[in-house]
């Protein structure tokens, strides 16, 4: 019908009923006036999706503005980059520990016996065109991903946006942090180089240390006593399918809740728990956020181009009797590594049964950190009894207790992170290692409360002059 009418207009036929947009289009053609390509796009959307009232509203979906709200977007975009680069890598990676003699272009390893997995990572890194770039983008964006998640979470904590009605979304975010960190660990374990193989050996030992179920859990999960020969093949589907699907699903739920509830906003003119002020999705927000996706991609690519990361060909293949010095995991596992190093040699013997010392820092401590993290919104309610709905954020500098708690927690993890590289620091500063270890052990216990108390005092002092006026 439409094309008939258009032809009718072009022929100049009379008596054809004209609609407004047909007339405009016809006139546009006649006078070479540009018509927007968005009009047919909008019509297509309605005719194929329906529900144009809903769509019309969502075009103007309001996003409050703040640089702080960009942090979660960084994490989201890192996930997208990881999926894209991960698909490329999966085309070449081979998850097998069967031995093979190296025949690639890296001469120092010529003829060396290695696993097929390590061989395929060397091939990606040194022989596949742009393979090294894609591998390094993948690794760098994983590092940025966890960093963005943590800073996003800190922002959420200090502004108390985890309160009702966003308790569930905080929980989803905390689970995401756990899964993303775990998948990062699995990811850098896949190349089967000396460093990652050593890391998996430690993971086996940690699993073994769990009371009652440890030994059985370790051999069942790792496919036998380490190294079982089938572990890489087992981690691979978890790394590229199971966990990414879980992360993607949780991210969808996280964003779905955000969309449905609208984003929180900082206090400002016209803003309240009832009224949201911000930029509309189309066009301003969509343009900006697409730009941010590309900028994050660009930054990760620039890192990958100019800053080498995880040069596995230098580490050599994993052989259980080899070892490297200055062996550090990726940064987001550093606190765990530090805790394991700081823990004194306390094995607990009960009758003939043993709880190895590594159980406390490697199993109990993560539990002690993640459990309160998961239930934080409910803990907050227990303390404050604040069950009301909040859409306006708190100013982080106005709540001494919350600020003190957060600062102490961050300090604790930071000391552990430093301890994770204590051998490197001892070497660089030329300090005796046992002395540095003792200092770090003391700091782990003493520094967090000091930082918390100082933060509490400072925030309360700063707050006073303007707290009374701002009410």
């Amino acid at each position: 019908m439409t094309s008939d009418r258009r032809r009718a207009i072009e022929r100049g036929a009379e008596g054809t009923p004209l609609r407004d947009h047909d007339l405009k289009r016809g006139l546009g053609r006649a006078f070479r006036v540009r018509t927007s390509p968005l009009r047919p796009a909008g019509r297509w959307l309605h005719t194929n999706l329906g529900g144009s009232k809903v769509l019309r509203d969502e075009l103007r979906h309001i996003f409050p503005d703040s640089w702080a709200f960009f942090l979660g977007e960084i994490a989201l975009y890192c996930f997208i980059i990881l999926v894209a680069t991960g698909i490329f890598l999966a085309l070449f990676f081979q998850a097998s520990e069967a031995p093979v003699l190296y025949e690639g272009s890296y001469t120092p390893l010529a003829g060396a016996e290695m696993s097929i997995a390590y061989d395929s990572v060397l091939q990606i890194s040194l022989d596949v065109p742009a393979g090294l770039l894609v591998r390094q983008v993948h690794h760098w964006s994983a590092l940025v991903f966890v960093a963005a998640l943590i800073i996003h979470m800190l922002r959420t904590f200090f502004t108390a946006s985890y309160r009702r009605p966003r308790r569930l979304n905080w929980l989803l975010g905390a689970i995401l942090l756990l899964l993303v960190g775990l998948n990062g660990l699995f990811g850098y374990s896949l190349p089967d180089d000396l460093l990652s193989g050593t890391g998996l050996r430690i993971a086996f030992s940690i699993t073994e240390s769990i009371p009652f179920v440890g030994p059985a859990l370790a051999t069942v999960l790792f496919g036998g006593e380490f190294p079982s020969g089938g572990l890489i093949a087992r981690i691979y589907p978890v790394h590229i399918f199971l966990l990414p699907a879980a992360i993607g699903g949780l991210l969808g739920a996280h964003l779905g809740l955000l969309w449905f509830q609208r984003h929180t906003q900082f206090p400002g003119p016209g803003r309240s728990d009832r009224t949201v002020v911000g930029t509309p999705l189309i066009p301003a927000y969509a343009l900006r956020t697409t730009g941010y996706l590309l900028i994050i991609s660009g930054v990760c690519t620039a890192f990958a181009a100019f800053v080498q990361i995880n040069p596995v060909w230098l580490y050599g293949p994993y052989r259980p009797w080899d070892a490297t010095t200055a062996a550090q995991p990726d940064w987001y596992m550093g606190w765990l590594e530090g805790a394991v190093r700081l823990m004194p040699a306390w094995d607990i013997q009960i009758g003939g049964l043993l709880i190895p010392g590594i159980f406390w820092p490697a199993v109990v401590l993560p539990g002690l950190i993640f459990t309160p993290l998961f239930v934080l919104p409910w803990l907050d309610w227990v303390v404050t009894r604040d069950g009301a709905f909040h859409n306006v954020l708190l100013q982080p500098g106005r709540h001494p207790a919350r600020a003190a708690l957060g600062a102490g927690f961050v300090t604790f993890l930071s000391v552990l992170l430093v301890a994770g590289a204590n051998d490197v620091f001892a070497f660089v500063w030329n300090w005796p290692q046992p002395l540095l270890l003792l200092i770090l052990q003391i700091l782990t216990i003493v520094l967090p409360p000091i930082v918390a108390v100082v933060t509490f005092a400072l925030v309360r002092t700063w707050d006073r002059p303007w707290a009374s006026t701002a009410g």
Partner: protein
Amino acid sequence: MSEQRPDQGERRHVATWPAGLGIAATVAGAVAFVVAFWVDASNAWIGGSLAFALLGLGLTLAYWGRDLAGDQVIAGRYPIPPENTEDQSAALATQLDEHASVLTRRGFLFKGLVFGIGVFALSQVVLLGALGPWPGDSLTTTGWRRGRRLVDSEGEPITRDALATGGFIVAFPEGSDLHQRADSQVALLHFVNGEFTPLSGRETWSPEDFVAYSRVCTHAGCSVAQYADADQVLLCPCHQSAFDVLNGAEPISGPAARPLPQLPLAIDDEGVLYAQSDFTEPVGPGFWNA
């Protein structure tokens, strides 16, 4: 959705030159990327040009969007306002109960349903058993047996002449594969005569001052691969545990709590070292039924 546009009449336009510059950078970066890939240039060229293109396009869009955002601030209502929270949740609860109480009203059947689902979910746990073997004796035994000879990393048997006094090498059971080598690896040390005093009960384990300790760290299972011969300690590079080789490989610093197990050695007529037996205790990190 109610919507207000504060500056509806006034339309600003994005400054053309920064956006134009960004688009030009994108095109230039994309062309450079293709060329760099084609001539197989270095990682820095391929990645640098790609990053240039991505940043050019990204900055253009972000700049344009930011410019628009300035005069497109709108206001609307939150879908879940704080007022009437109690009333609304009560209304939802009532409605849910109205529609779904046909299920819960059949108390016995509903509980049975929940129970059945629970039993089914638990039953799926047995699939975990398909994943791997049970530990058996794999964690408490190694590749060492009575009479098994010590070989070096090339598989050559180690004779008394192969290792000078003060020396330190890694040794494995003869004929072991990579898997066996993992938990059977030992640090073989040859002490100066009179330097090493065996622990009681281990007097016959160190013929001619040859001593072998498990190289699997008792803390987290890394290879105790370093030997500081000045201090005569074995060092684990993973978490910096140190073991005193003159005193039964007792841990002297770091997080390891138990000594490295010692392998009972002997020397045959040809001068080749061999094991008297397997280790007398489990090697490596501790576990529950140690």
